[in-house]
């Protein structure tokens, strides 16, 4: 069996978990193996019911009210326990915060390696994976050992796809054995997202600003354009390191991954660590004084010139058309 750790919200599996399940189902069918899932939390049963569409035949619901709030080590311990009783060949999860974390705990508890952010798996002996390094700007082919193979699947690398024929999900409760130490780390409070704000990760339009913007004040030009397009402002690391903008606006390997319809990158050179954060944009438009900047080979469109004249001209043109 292949067991997938499934994250869910409001009784439905998260998109990244559906990606992982799609990946896992293909792997399982290649191996002639079955697909199982493990879910935590009070809404686990509801979420599990929807997994037949993805080919899951067996869902393990971890049954322990102490685990209703997220508790990384205890969730990992539960998964390790489940592995002990079900002996899967492979355990996988989406490469999300929780996916990486819960699998890393379970793998470590079982003295087994784990490969993070895989995009391909070649099962067999040796068992090989291709995984992302440097946030996805470089790939590594690696050998993964262990009686059970633990791996996470890079987000956005697989499209979620339902199985041709849905399966019936057999649901089983699993009661983990936990120690006090496993329960030390728990979410004790949550702060809800700000309402009404266009979030960078979900924005359809992102206006990006880099070193070329030149200072904190000049960002008002980018704010204006983003506002007219109901979009968000994103920035490069140079900008956050200089304190011109908060880190929450940083796009890239150590910032946010964006996937807008259009990314308007102003005064950004296109360093590889920035590109991994914006390459999911449908269209990239670069505004740069340098025709040879690396961003030019990633962008579909470009305007060559000083952003301080181009960006205000764009806003003016939009206003002019909106008024007419």
């Amino acid at each position, binding site marked *: 069996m292949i067991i997938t750790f499934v994250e869910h919200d409001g009784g439905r599996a998260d998109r990244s978990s559906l990606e992982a399940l799609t990946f896992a189902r293909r792997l399982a069918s290649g191996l002639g193996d079955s697909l199982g899932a493990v879910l935590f939390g009070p809404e686990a049963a509801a979420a599990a019911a929807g997994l037949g569409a993805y080919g899951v035949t067996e869902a393990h619901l971890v049954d322990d009210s102490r685990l209703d709030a997220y508790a990384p080590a205890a969730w990992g311990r539960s998964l390790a326990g489940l592995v002990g009783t079900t002996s899967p060949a492979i355990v996988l999860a989406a490469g999300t915060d929780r996916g990486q974390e819960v699998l890393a705990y379970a793998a470590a508890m079982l003295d087994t390696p784990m490969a993070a952010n895989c995009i391909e798996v070649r099962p067999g002996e040796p068992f090989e994976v291709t995984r992302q390094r*440097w946030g996805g700007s470089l790939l590594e082919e690696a050998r993964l050992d262990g009686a059970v193979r633990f791996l996470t699947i890079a987000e956005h690398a697989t499209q979620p796809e339902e199985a041709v024929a849905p399966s019936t999900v057999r649901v089983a409760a699993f009661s983990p054995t936990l120690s006090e130490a496993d329960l030390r780390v728990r979410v004790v409070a949550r702060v809800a997202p700000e309402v009404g704000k266009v979030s960078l990760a979900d924005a359809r339009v992102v206006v990006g600003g880099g070193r070329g913007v030149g200072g904190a004040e000049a960002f008002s030009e980018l704010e204006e354009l983003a506002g007219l397009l*109901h979009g968000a402002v994103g920035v490069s690391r140079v900008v956050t390191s200089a304190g011109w903008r908060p880190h929450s606006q940083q796009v890239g390997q150590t910032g946010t991954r964006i996937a807008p319809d259009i990314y308007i990158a102003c005064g950004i050179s296109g360093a590889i660590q920035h590109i991994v954060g914006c390459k999911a944009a449908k269209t990239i438009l670069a505004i740069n004084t340098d025709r040879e900047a690396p961003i030019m080979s990633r962008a579909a469109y470009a305007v060559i010139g000083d952003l301080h004249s181009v960006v205000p001209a764009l806003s003016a043109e939009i206003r002019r058309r909106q008024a007419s």
Partner: protein
Amino acid sequence: MNVLVCVKRVPETGGRVTLSSDAREIDTRYLGFTVSPHEECATEEAVRLIEANGGSSTVLTLGPEAASDQLRAAMAIGIDRAILLETDGQDWDPVSTSVAIVDAIRAEAAAGVSYDLLLFGNEAADSGDFQVAIRVALALGLPCINGVKSLAVKDGVATARREAGGGWEVFEVPLPAVLAVREGINLPRYPSVPGRLRAKKKEIERSVPVARLVGAMGPAAGPEKIRLRLPAETEGRVEILGTGAEAAPAVVDLLERIGVLAR
């Protein structure tokens, strides 16, 4: 209070990466080196904690002799001590790395140095294994919080917050604890000239870690790197819409075409 921060030397890549001829490493002939931004922030956080609470901060790396540069960079912003677990420059996998770090922390304890906080980056910049901190914490029996973007330490308790779904998750653990932090938790300072000079003169404590794993007796290590490869890139040709402000109408036409401009 004693704080240990773990950092990893990585090449500072720019617009384009090339690989060594055996495809096992990045070609670093024309590159500088650095540590992950997450680890720069972990280092800054360590310095701030000691400034606020007193005590001592230590930076540790497992890497080649050249990684002394990264240790000195940390001392230049105020870290007190530096430990180099010296390798021959080959990349160590995350299991072996965590074992070496645990051994070093145990050796420190045997010499009478115990740490209240062990700070890590959330993931290493190059390998992105997302696990060394967790493995170290489990081996030492310590609680661990990952993805930390805000931290307060008071009366022996660490309150850490991390981003989740646009909002925040709050965790609370007693010290000693392991925290893996993310860039954004603070704005690291630049080293001062006197800071740099001081760091240059400081001693680096060295030892050679033993890769004492793999095989039938010990736990399995890995993942084991076979080779690197560059992802296939769809490098289309860029269409220049114009030069300077005159390009505005062409750009706005484009915005209308792709449907992001409501009229």
